């Protein structure tokens, strides 16, 4: 008994015939990518239900690797060896070429990630970070003997990029933060007639906390990522290997200039951020009828020199952390086109996380010291 069904597309067609237990797939025309796309589902469905499979290729005019893949996948869906009839020499040659190439290699089982392994990796990362800081300290100690490698032009260029070019952004953010903080505080404090104490609140908040913190965020976003990308690109281009073969210490030539520049420029940027924040606050309070001279008096009475110096010390610590993390991410850059991007991302994320953690540590320390 014979049943048949036909599918035709473009220059190719498939007729499925059932002859007893045998399913016969009769192909005709050109078996190319278009034909394979159109006939794929019907071919595999018919083949998978067959007890015995025969591929009739008498009417096939041409067959490329897509067509051959279709025929071999039909055989795979059938689960055994199909009988192939009527393949002309050219079609048989393509089938012979594709058959060994279509064997799917056994995939090695993927190792599962266990929690202890993940924790170990985190621990290793922290240990590497500590080791890196140790290497930085050694490089710093040896720097006087290697002053030729610590080029002034590199330090100045890093200071220009990390510091001078960040000034407009720092001023803008500072003014906006001062405006927002003052406005948000002013509305509830007015109810209690405490408008004037907004100056105390914002001044303390900006100078002790937000100034250094936001400046560190700016440094991490602008310069931490740039340090990682620069050094990472140098690593990918084997420039670090070239330095090593010249006997030049990458720590001294690449890391120290950036570290010095960030450490020096962070307090400068923080001072600018503080003053911009106070300016923004003054604008809001003036707008609500508080004279600028009263605001100035309130700020002077609220702040003591230790607030400024404490904030600037924080800024130095944050600068070291952000620059070191950026440089470390660059030196740890892997291979491939995504590696530099990943290094830059880890520099920004690491810089921000480290800044906030250090801020917490310093807050506790200041509290203990009674600052």
């Amino acid at each position, binding site marked *: 008994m014979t049943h048949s069904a036909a599918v035709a597309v473009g220059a190719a067609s498939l007729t499925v015939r059932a002859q007893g237990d045998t399913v016969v797939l009769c192909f005709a025309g050109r078996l190319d*990518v278009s034909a394979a796309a159109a006939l*794929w589902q019907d071919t595999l469905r018919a083949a998978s239900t067959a007890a015995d499979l025969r591929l009739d290729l008498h009417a096939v005019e041409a067959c490329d*690797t897509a067509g051959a*893949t279709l025929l071999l996948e039909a055989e795979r869906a059938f689960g055994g060896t199909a009988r192939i009839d009527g393949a002309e020499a050219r079609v048989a040659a*393509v089938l012979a070429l594709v058959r060994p*190439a279509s064997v799917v290699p056994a995939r090695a089982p993927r190792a599962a990630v266990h929690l202890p392994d993940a924790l170990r990796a985190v621990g290793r990362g922290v240990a590497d970070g500590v080791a890196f800081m140790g290497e930085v300290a050694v490089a710093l100690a040896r720097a006087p003997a290697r002053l030729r490698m610590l080029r002034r032009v590199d330090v100045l260029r890093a200071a220009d990029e990390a510091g001078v070019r960040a000034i407009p952004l720092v001023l803008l953010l500072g003014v906006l933060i001062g405006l927002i903080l003052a406005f948000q505080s002013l509305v509830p404090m007015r109810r209690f007639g405490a408008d004037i104490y907004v100056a105390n609140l914002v001044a303390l908040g900006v100078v002790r906390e937000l100034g250094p913190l936001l400046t560190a965020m700016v440094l991490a976003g602008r310069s931490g990522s740039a340090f990682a990308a620069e050094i990472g690109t140098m690593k990918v281009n084997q420039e670090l290997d070239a330095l090593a073969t010249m006997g030049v210490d990458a720590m001294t030539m690449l890391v120290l200039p950036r570290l010095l520049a960030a450490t020096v420029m962070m307090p400068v940027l923080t001072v600018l951020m503080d003053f911009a924040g106070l300016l923004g606050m003054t604008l809001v309070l003036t707008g609500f009828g508080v004279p600028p001279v009263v605001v100035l008096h309130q700020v002077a009475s609220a702040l003591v020199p230790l607030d400024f110096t404490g904030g600037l010390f924080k800024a130095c610590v944050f600068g070291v952390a952000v620059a070191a993390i950026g440089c470390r991410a660059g030196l740890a850059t892997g291979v*491939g*086109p995504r590696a530099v991007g990943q290094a830059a991302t880890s520099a920004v994320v690491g810089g921000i996380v480290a800044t906030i953690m250090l801020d917490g540590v310093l807050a506790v320390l200041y509290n203990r010291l009674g600052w």
Partner: protein
Amino acid sequence: MTPIIAAAGLRQAFGSRVIFSEVSFTVQPGEVFVILGGSGCGKSVLMRQIIGLLPPVAGTVQVLGQDMYAAATDIRTRIGVMFQAGALFGSMTLLENVMLPLELLSDLPYAARVALARVKLGLVGLAESAEKMPSEISGGMAKRAAIARAMALDPPLLLLDEPSAGLDPITSAGLDRLILDLRDELGITFVVVTHELASILAIADRCLMLDAAAAGVIASGDPRSLAAESTHPTVRAFFHREATARPSRTIGI
């Protein structure tokens, strides 16, 4: 027989610097056609003109019977190109690289795309490396993967830019063998840009030799005949690895 490529009167210049002019040739179906010449003679420029990336200053290029630079031509989807460094997408595995043209330019279902991409990688001997990233493989493997991607849609024409550059002789010979196998078994026509002498003599049915000094074609035909019979000094120097006149150098004291 209708040629696969018909180039007539091609000229390229950048500003006042003429790279080449009056370059005309045809490529017949099923042949391996090599464009050769010394460094800076315009081989890769000519290839970019053929594949539609650099409109010629003058002349025409017809590929598979269509003008390469005519509006609304879809001819670029019917040719495969392997660039010098492979140009594999670094964020994708080799399998995904080969699947990409199938996904973008065919209606094949996912399972069919995977199966076909595996076949292509198998044909170039990279079945075991299908899940690797381009950064994890050697230069020779990257070139083979790029060939697999170029032939994803079974194009009748493959253009290869410096397939042997930077490869060791054994890997290079393997690539030459692959080109001949694909030509013989699948009938693919190849245009190969190279200056690797061993590769040229191994694979080329015909060749076209460009020269920077002449700013155009200085020889064409069977490379073995050119090597044996040409009297052109540059052609002889190229095929017999002879140094041309040494550039003069002045040392001032």
